[in-house]
């Protein structure tokens, strides 16, 4: 067994699901012989043929709508969108159909589909290639939103997403696609779709994040450890439905919480977690909840991108501020 990158782990999970279940098909722009622009589907067309790995016309609204039709026929399409910034035309189908087909037919038809897209910044990509739109999907009823942060979690969560009987939006932090390698046994073991991962223990402050921010958070935790501050770290890989319990438990012990993400701040995903703490978690809080996020501006082009993306220093600084409260 060799260590895999995240993109390889995702590919392994898709391949395994395709082996297991003939109803699993992969669709998207350039997913065939090109193997996808990030090579997530590399080798799949050679292995499973053009009828199961389907290059589509350049039509994102279609991609989502096709998936609804395929899903209603009990197929399990795994649909690749090329970049985060090109997922928006799919929103109409996702919110108006995918997320409610089961409900509106009282279970007669359903939508066992996976919507995959690379997402987030940090790779000096062109305009519209560095978006963090997770809030849009996490706010939609009837849809799960999943964001892995390591190769292993990507493998297990992708398998779970494909096997899940309902629609899953699966956002893949492109900055992590090849950033690290990890042993990923291709054992067919799925991970639960509604549990946060406790990544690091520490009861001075709880750092919460997902996707590419998680690596920044872990760096921050190291910085803080050097200063004698023990930070616990939670990976909210399954944003929706949100595993509130794990977060509340941790903050009950630490009394302090920093949430980090790349998405714009206002009405962004950290707000939900902060709201949870302002509600059920209120009396555990020793200090204000800090959100370390992107700003309420379009993600800048590469030259200014580093000033936009939350980094370890910003996260650590927020944690230090919280340590001032007891």
């Amino acid at each position, binding site marked *: 067994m060799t260590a895999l990158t995240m993109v390889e782990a995702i590919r392994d999970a898709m391949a395994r699901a395709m082996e297991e279940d003939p109803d699993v098909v992969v669709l998207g722009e350039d997913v065939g012989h090109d193997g996808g622009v990030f090579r997530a589907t590399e080798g799949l067309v050679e292995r499973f043929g053009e009828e199961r790995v389907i290059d589509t016309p350049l039509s994102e*609204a279609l991609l989502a709508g096709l998936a609804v*039709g*395929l899903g*209603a026929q009990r197929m399990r399409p795994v649909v690749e969108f090329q970049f985060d910034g090109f997922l928006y035309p799919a929103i109409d*189908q996702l919110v*108006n159909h995918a997320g409610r087909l*089961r409900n509106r037919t*009282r279970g007669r038809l359903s939508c066992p589909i996976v919507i995959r897209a690379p997402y987030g910044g940090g790779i000096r990509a062109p305009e519209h290639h560095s978006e963090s739109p997770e809030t849009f999907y996490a706010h939609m009823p009837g849809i799960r939103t999943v964001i892995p942060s390591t190769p292993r979690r990507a493998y297990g969560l992708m398998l779970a997403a494909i096997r899940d*009987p309902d629609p899953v939006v699966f956002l893949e932090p492109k900055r992590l696609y090849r950033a690290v390698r990890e042993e990923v046994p291709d054992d067919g073991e799925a991970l639960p779709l*509604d549990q946060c991962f406790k990544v690091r223990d520490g009861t001075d402050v709880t750092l919460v994040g997902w996707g590419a921010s998680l690596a920044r958070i872990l760096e921050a935790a190291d910085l803080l450890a050097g200063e004698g501050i023990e930070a616990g770290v939670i990976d909210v890989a399954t944003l929706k439905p949100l595993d509130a319990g794990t977060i509340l438990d941790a903050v009950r012990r630490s009394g302090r919480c920093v949430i980090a993400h790349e998405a714009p701040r206002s009405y962004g995903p950290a707000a939900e977690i902060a709201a949870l703490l302002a509600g059920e978690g209120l009396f555990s809080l020793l200090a204000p909840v800090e959100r370390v996020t992107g700003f309420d501006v379009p993600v800048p082009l590469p030259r200014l991108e580093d000033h936009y993306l939350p980094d370890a220093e910003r996260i650590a600084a927020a944690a230090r501020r919280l340590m001032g409260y007891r």
Partner: protein
Amino acid sequence: MQQVASFAVERTAYLNADGTCAERLPAFAGDRDELVRLYRSMVLTRTFDAKAVALQRTGRLGTFASSLGQEAVTVGIGAAMRPEDVLVPSFREQGAQILRGVTLEEIFAYWGGDERGSDFAGPREDFPICVPVGTQAAHAAGVALAFRLRREPRVAVCVMGDGATSKGDVYEAMNAAGVWRLPLVFVVNNNEWAISVPRSKQTAAKTLAQKAIAAGFEGEQVDGNDVIAVRAVMERALAMARDERQPRLIEALTYRLSDHTTADDARRYRDDKEVSERWKAEPVGRLRGFLVARDWWSKGDEEKLLADCAREVDAAAEAYLARTGQPATAMIDHVFAELPAAMEGQRAAIAALGARAGGEGR
């Protein structure tokens, strides 16, 4: 300059407005029983529509979209499809739904604001009514793609209005149907109006059938007030889709004799004269004229049919009105296959609201 491609759009029609024939009829038109089936379905649809409008006017149904004047389109579709085909309708195809086995009570329930109306006991794989205009086209493409991948001899039929042809998602679905040669028939119910927007403000295309040219397959027109013609072109299109994987677009030329929905007042934007003029070409009287001319239909037959239809529709309306409500928790119990743990608190809150309101919902 060199000509590199050329295209044509044709139109099919058999019956004149007075019930006489313009062309040689297709074989099935020699079968009285089949024509009576079509006639009966159109009358039942019209009876149903009238009842639904009446229920809405008296506060016992929600907003409703009548298919008055367009029964030949929807009945022609329903009559030509096989049970194993899949209908992907918009919101005005009750005629086709009824022929395929959706019950009148279910249709009432849907428009009465009850999700159970889309849990058809009959055609289990048909799509429910689609309100966001044109969004169903991609579903039909997905269904047809599934048929193709599984090598099933089934066809998806996607119905939409003239207004829907302006939607980009419809075009995207057509383009996919063309390039993948999907077993998929698109039917455009061109009733000349999209609420207040006339066909002429919707597109400069001379025909809506030619929209298919952009997608690389053929489109044709049919007289949408001539149920024989609609059934005939549908049958041909279904066969070509099923056997030769040729998608097709059929533009049925008809007219919306009613308001857009019960929430609309068409006199605001169109002339009553236009409407009364178009009554002359309506499809039910036209087929009756044909049947009567062949001596296949009598005054007695007509009276009996009207009475039967009224009885059937009234019975369905009563069953609908007598339905018991769903518990409040029904709104959350079908969102996911299994209720996620994170939603249990919300479910309890909804149950409490239901209890507060005294048990089940309306």
